[in-house]
């Protein structure tokens, strides 16, 4: 059996997992995969979070990818980071940079077991701030500068690839080089608020090709979190496992302790359990009904007869689910074009993410959606709220 086949049937513990510490965030990015903004009153306490870390240590989960929301706004953030690294659980955390001042950078530079990812979705303020909010580019770059000046080595710049920044890949690389950072590119998903902007932001087919060629040219020097395996159907496989790891080698623990199959699948259909239930995280990982089902052999469904199925594995489960496509068919961004055909046949509304912690009144400097007003009223003076509805 090949190694990836073993992975597909599940491991005793995840290789790594994403842990979102809070739904609170100072920003309101238009594509936020967890619809973050406001803290949830049920979020894990410090003691509960430490109990999760104890469990991860027992299961030998080597590291966690901490995110949010904005994890650093939790008052016990550094306490939890220190607790994890003291218990053989390495930490990689994603931040928009809001709390990475010089003092924090000095602290990080002194630790051997913490990696930092600064999120940037444009290589220029113009492109970045349209998605992440006014001032967010300057904030991220300031954080990168503090990390560099403190002697922190090899920070990461984490980029969600969109229609507006694919043309900036070289500029991102130059920015990363300038700050002694490694570039990390990941795929936009129609998850959380990302569902609202997917049609406008996901890369065009030509851009997917451009991205694939760029990734092939840059090889292992650029990180991808294994998120572009659907592009492998363009030709040779990209570095990485080329496998949907949901519930098999990865999962998500959300701020209230819910365990989902992957960070991009915050929906009841992918909820496996909660770390607060008897048996804790280990019970959910090893015995939940959902994860057991995900580890069964997958049929490939409509994709099984495609010659590229071995390389792309049908693509991303979350991308299919939140665009209303069946899970055993093509990815909406299938590079052979089958996704577009399938999308044309979707008649029912796509499932909505479970839970929404978005800010209710917007945030200072928040991004201004660019799609408002595209749909005109049916008639110039139409005031009937049922206008346009077939009743």
């Amino acid at each position, binding site marked *: 059996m090949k190694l990836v086949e*073993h992975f597909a049937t599940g*491991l*005793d513990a995840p*290789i790594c997992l994403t842990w979102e510490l809070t739904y609170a965030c100072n920003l309101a990015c238009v594509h936020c995969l967890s619809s973050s903004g406001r803290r949830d009153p049920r979020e894990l306490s410090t003691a509960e979070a430490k109990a999760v870390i104890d469990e991860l240590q027992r299961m*030998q989960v*080597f*590291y966690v990818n901490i995110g949010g929301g904005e994890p650093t706004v939790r008052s016990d953030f550094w306490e939890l980071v220190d607790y994890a690294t003291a218990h*053989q659980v*390495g930490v990689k955390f994603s931040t928009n940079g809001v709390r990475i001042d010089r003092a924090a950078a000095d602290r990080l530079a002194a630790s*051997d077991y913490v990696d930092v990812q600064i999120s940037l979705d444009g290589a220029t303020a113009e492109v970045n701030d349209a998605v992440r909010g006014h001032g967010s580019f300057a904030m991220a770059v300031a954080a990168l500068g503090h990390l560099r000046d403190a002697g922190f080595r090899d920070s990461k710049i984490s980029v969600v690839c969109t229609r507006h920044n694919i043309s900036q890949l070289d500029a991102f690389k130059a920015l990363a080089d300038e700050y002694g950072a490694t570039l990390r590119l990941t795929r936009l998903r129609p998850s959380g608020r990302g569902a609202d902007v997917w049609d406008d932001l996901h890369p065009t087919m030509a851009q997917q090709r451009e991205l694939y060629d760029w990734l092939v040219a840059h090889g292992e020097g650029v990180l991808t979190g294994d998120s572009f395996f659907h592009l492998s159907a363009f030709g040779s496989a990209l570095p990485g496992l080329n496998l949907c790891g949901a519930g098999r080698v990865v999962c998500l623990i959300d701020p209230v302790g819910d365990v989902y199959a992957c960070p991009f699948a915050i929906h009841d259909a992918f909820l496996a359990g909660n770390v607060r239930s008897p048996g804790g995280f280990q019970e959910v990982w090893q015995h939940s009904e959902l994860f057991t089902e995900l580890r069964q052999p997958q049929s490939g469904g409509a994709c099984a007869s495609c010659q590229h199925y071995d390389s792309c594995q049908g693509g991303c489960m979350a991308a299919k689910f939140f665009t209303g496509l069946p899970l055993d068919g093509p990815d909406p961004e299938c590079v052979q074009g089958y996704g577009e055909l399938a999308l044309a046949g979707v008649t029912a509304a796509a499932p909505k993410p479970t839970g929404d912690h978005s800010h209710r009144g917007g945030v200072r400097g928040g991004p201004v959606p660019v799609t408002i007003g595209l749909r005109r009223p049916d008639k110039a003076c139409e005031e009937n709220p049922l206008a346009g509805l077939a009743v």
Partner: protein
Amino acid sequence: MLSLHPQVSVRPEPFGALLYHFGTRRLSFLKDRRLLDVVQRLDGSTSVDDALADVPAAERPAFRTALSTLEKTGMLT
């Protein structure tokens, strides 16, 4: 004499084992339980040959290659 790098953690899995190096952040896979046995035995052995004692002679070259790869990637030192 080869031994496991002090910053490397070993997690047995049904297919073999996962190795994680906390210093380099590198992840490696041992695709054979017997290779895991050999790696775990290195610490108490006087030589690589000693650690390979239970491996059939015909298979030892492949095990040596695997150990050498682990050494190159810093998992063994």
